[in-house]
């Protein structure tokens, strides 16, 4: 599936060991937790006096294949940083839209595999921003292109080909949506091992698509990097509420399961061109972290239905053990309104409502009240938007977690099928399906 050079897909990001341990040591000591385990492995990071020496990563050469039936960035192991950039399409006609999709395809193919930019006559602007130097490494970059419902309006003659469930996101009861952080014609999900790689890709794309794309909103996020773990499967990374996130995702190695849950295809009501695509939901969900940090641990665990430290279900076992609700009809162990129990009651027939979550933590700035503006850049994929996110979110409406979270932005998109080979481009099947003989 991927060319990952090292074989730790859940943690593809390995920092230079010295610096890596420096971070851990400092964190442990600062919190007064400098236990013996840390003490043994801690190394002295201050021996070097190279103050501004570049941080070193051993994973810059990791790359994910761009061509294929499905786009990258969905089943691809989630790297340490990601962002969603939602744009409006400025192209005014089909020709312009096609040009945009071809340029995007060409740029993504280049950026995700790496290469060298041409040198220019210095009286011209340079070929790219140069923030990664003249030769860029792939750094596990993926760029995933999806379309919003608004693209299927009268501008491009695509109305008849709109995926069946694609619609403009509507607010749920706990939402406080900000219009400037919602909806849009086209979303770019850009992920990589390091933040600067995603920024470079975004700036390249913006520079190459003037007059075609206008950025509407953008949200960046991260996933905490973990030390390589001897345990398999690797424990999940944590979100900003301190809980392991991603545990109960459907198994992405199971092709048949992915075909039924993630990739749009089998439904005869879906347009043919959409085969191999997926519905993408993006939600910017603010977390009230100060308040959360003042909540009882027992309450926190009851809210999610999992142990904070281990991620194990309240019903027992370890992180990846199945929660047991059968012997707990009254919710004495796992409350009936616990997040995971509402999101997936694990009852017969509920399998078709499962979704693939691939979120990032975000941290933006400070609110007027002095509280931190941070939360979850929630990204999910599913074959059927209605059966997936919308059904699950409706079940979650009113959950106790709502006291600590507030969705403020996002949108619904349809992730285009992949570009099969060098002759193909993203969105080709859509354009072909809507061609009219003039």
């Amino acid at each position, binding site marked *: 599936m991927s060319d990952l050079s090292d074989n730790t897909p859940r943690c593809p990001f390995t920092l230079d060991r010295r610096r890596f341990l420096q971070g851990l040591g400092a964190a442990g000591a600062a919190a007064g937790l400098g236990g013996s385990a840390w003490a043994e492995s801690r190394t002295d990071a201050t021996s070097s006096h190279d103050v501004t020496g570049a941080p070193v990563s051993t994973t810059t050469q990791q790359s994910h294949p761009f061509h294929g039936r499905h786009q990258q960035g969905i089943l691809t192991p989630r790297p340490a940083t990601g962002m969603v950039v939602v744009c*409006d399409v*400025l*192209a*005014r006609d089909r*020709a*312009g839209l096609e*040009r945009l999709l*071809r*340029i995007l*395809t*060409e*740029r993504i*193919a*280049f950026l995700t595999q790496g*290469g*060298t*930019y*041409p040198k*220019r*006559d210095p*009286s*011209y*602007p340079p*070929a790219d921003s140069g923030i990664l130097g003249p030769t860029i490494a792939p750094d596990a970059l993926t760029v995933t292109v999806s379309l919003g419902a608004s693209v299927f309006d009268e501008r491009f003659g695509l109305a008849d080909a709109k995926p069946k469930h694609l619609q403009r996101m509507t607010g749920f009861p706990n939402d406080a949506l900000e219009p400037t952080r919602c909806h849009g014609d086209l979303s770019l999900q850009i992920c990589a091992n390091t933040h600067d790689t995603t920024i470079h890709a975004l700036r390249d794309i913006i*520079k*190459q698509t*003037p*007059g*075609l794309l*206008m950025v509407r909103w953008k949200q960046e996020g991260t996933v905490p990097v973990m030390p390589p773990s001897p345990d398999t499967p690797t424990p999940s990374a944590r979100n900003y509420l301190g809980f392991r996130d991603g545990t109960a995702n459907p198994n992405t190695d199971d092709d048949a399961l992915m075909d039924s849950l993630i990739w749009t295809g089998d439904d005869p009501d879906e347009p043919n061109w959409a085969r191999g695509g997926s519905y993408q939901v993006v939600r910017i969900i603010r977390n009230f972290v100060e308040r959360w940090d003042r909540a009882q641990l027992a309450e926190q665990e009851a809210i999610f239905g999992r142990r904070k430290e281990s991620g194990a279900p309240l019903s027992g076992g370890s992180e990846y053990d199945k929660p047991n609700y059968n012997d707990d009809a009254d919710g004495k162990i796992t409350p009936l309104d616990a997040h995971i129990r509402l999101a997936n009651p694990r009852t017969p027939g509920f399998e078709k409502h499962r979704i693939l979550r691939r979120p990032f933590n975000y941290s933006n700035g400070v609110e007027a009240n002095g509280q931190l503006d941070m939360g979850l850049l929630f990204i999910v994929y599913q074959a059927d938007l209605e059966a997936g996110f919308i059904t699950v979110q409706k079940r979650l409406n009113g959950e106790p977690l709502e006291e600590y979270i507030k969705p403020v932005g996002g949108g619904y998109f349809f992730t285009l099928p992949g570009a099969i080979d*060098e*002759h193909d*481009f993203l969105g080709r099947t859509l354009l072909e399906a809507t061609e009219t003989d003039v």
Partner: protein
Amino acid sequence: MSHRSLFFAASVFGLMVLQTPAQADVDPETLVEPIAEYKLYVLDNLDQFVSHTEKFTQAIEAGDLERAQALYAPTRVYYERIEPIAELFADLDASIDAREDDYENGVEDPDFTGFHRLEYGLFKEQTTQGFTPYAKQLMTDVNDLESRVQDLTFPPAQVVGGAAALMEEVAATKVSGEEDRYSHTDLWDFQGNVDGSQKIFELFKPLVAEEDPAFVDRVEKNFAAVEDTLAHYRHETNNPEAGFVSYEKVSETDRRAFVGPVTVLAEDLATLRGKLGL
């Protein structure tokens, strides 16, 4: 660059940023005439700027709010056209055209003077009371600017680069409506910037037309696209002097329609110096 470029068709918005630009082959002598002509254009506009500023500031000193409001935008236009040159004098640019965002204390900042300080009084506070000192200061600054520009040798790179710089102005502050946030006369400034940019392009066009006709064609079409949208919001379609509707009346769709051609113009015109070997 990727050899995988699939296709690049040049159409209205088309921009072949990926092509390797041709080496400039322009005789510096040929720049002399357009530069001289541009200086005439700037001096002409400055002349008008001075006389309009006189009327504008007199209206304020006379306490004629309505007249001062009416003269605000038509006066600024001349400045907006020649910004690439005016901005060479950073001290004057700050006292003539700074915005409240440029000061930590915003409107209250004692250093905040010029058009936008007056705009705040005339359109937000709806008064001329107490604004005479700002009016007098503005007049002094504008006269100072004129005499400094007269003595100036125009640097070719600055002039040619001005075509793109003006479009950057539009892209950064006009499309968003933040330039004239109290008077909502952004379209006047918008037109001023576009006029100034187009003038520079027209003057140097003959030097690049032969080598890159597609470039010239694209730039002209994008200027035309901007002009079309602007015309739509004029009180009289074909008469820029008649003025524009309030920027609040410009639809979201049209604000967006500006961004496309404006961004392509900014990218394209950014290569003009390269094409002329500057």
